[in-house]
């Protein structure tokens, strides 16, 4: 039964990504060319609502279903891993024109070349696991 809700959330998310064109290579390229407010508006408006909502959750100590704490743990402090990792991610995001959510959406939309990108992403994740201990974190 729980899986039905995860599936529904995924379908909902997939439709949003596709319909907002956030899953389009062209929109990512246009964003980094500062050619349109569209992508900034999507991320920005999600963020404004997100910040307000999280503050409300914290202020009124709203619990998740079942009375559990919400999954809002602070992230471990570091600069190197977030900055270097972030830059590497950004290089790929702009080149492939897709981040890890939209990649799956595009499979469903029938752009099968994206499977090559997903294969590359799995390989990248695997290589990170191999060299993790040698990298500054």
């Amino acid at each position, binding site marked *: 039964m*729980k899986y039905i809700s*995860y*599936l529904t*959330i*995924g*379908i909902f998310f*997939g439709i949003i*990504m*596709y*319909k*907002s064109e956030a899953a389009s*290579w*062209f929109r990512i*390229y246009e964003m*980094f060319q500062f*050619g*349109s*407010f569209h*992508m900034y508006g999507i991320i920005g408006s*999600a*963020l404004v*609502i*997100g*910040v307000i*909502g*999280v503050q409300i959750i914290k202020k009124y100590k709203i619990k998740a279903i079942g009375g*559990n704490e919400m999954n809002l743990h602070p992230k*471990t*402090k570091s600069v190197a*891993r*977030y900055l*270097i*990792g*972030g*830059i*590497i991610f950004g*290089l*790929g995001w*702009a*080149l*492939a024109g*897709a*981040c*890890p*959510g939209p990649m*799956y959406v*595009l499979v469903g*939309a029938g752009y099968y*070349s*994206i499977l*090559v990108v*997903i294969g*590359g992403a*799995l390989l*990248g*994740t*695997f290589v*990170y696991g*191999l060299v*993790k201990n040698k990298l500054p974190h």
Partner: protein
Amino acid sequence: MNLLYDPWPWYVAGPLIALTMFVLLFIGKKFGMSSNLRTMCSIGGAGKYSDFFKFDWKSQRWNLVVVIGAIIGGFIASQFMSNNKVIINPDVAQQLTTDYGIESAGEAYLPTELFATENLSDPFVLAVLIIGGFLVGFGARYAGGCTSGHAISGLSNLQLPSLIAVIGFFIGGLVMIHLLFPLIFS
């Protein structure tokens, strides 16, 4: 406008993404798509090569179900809710054509020059797709998250690490488009 068929404007999509995050929080989970890549590596047996992949991946099955949903969502949206053509800023589209010979803006959802299945036999196209994916996968795990985990979830929770990561995303993206694209595509 036709809300079902036309592209959704940012002020519809952004709030709906925030809603996705809150629903996941409310059911005790969190919004983060790139961790699925690690889960898939673990399922594929990567734990034999690195302890990074030795974790209780079964606790992450819910997120794989979200992925399956996202695939179905992509199918529904592309089949029934879209003409699958993305119209961008005409100046940017013109620049793509003039500088890089990418002429499919306004005609397709993804540039056919890079994503048409028949172009997979072109080693250049194959390299772009694999390297792009590799950088996304490696970078997301190194940074501990991607657009959903850092730019939406982390920043919503006012996490400084997420701000650093998102600044990194944009440095990387700007370097790729403005410095490396001219070298790669012309």
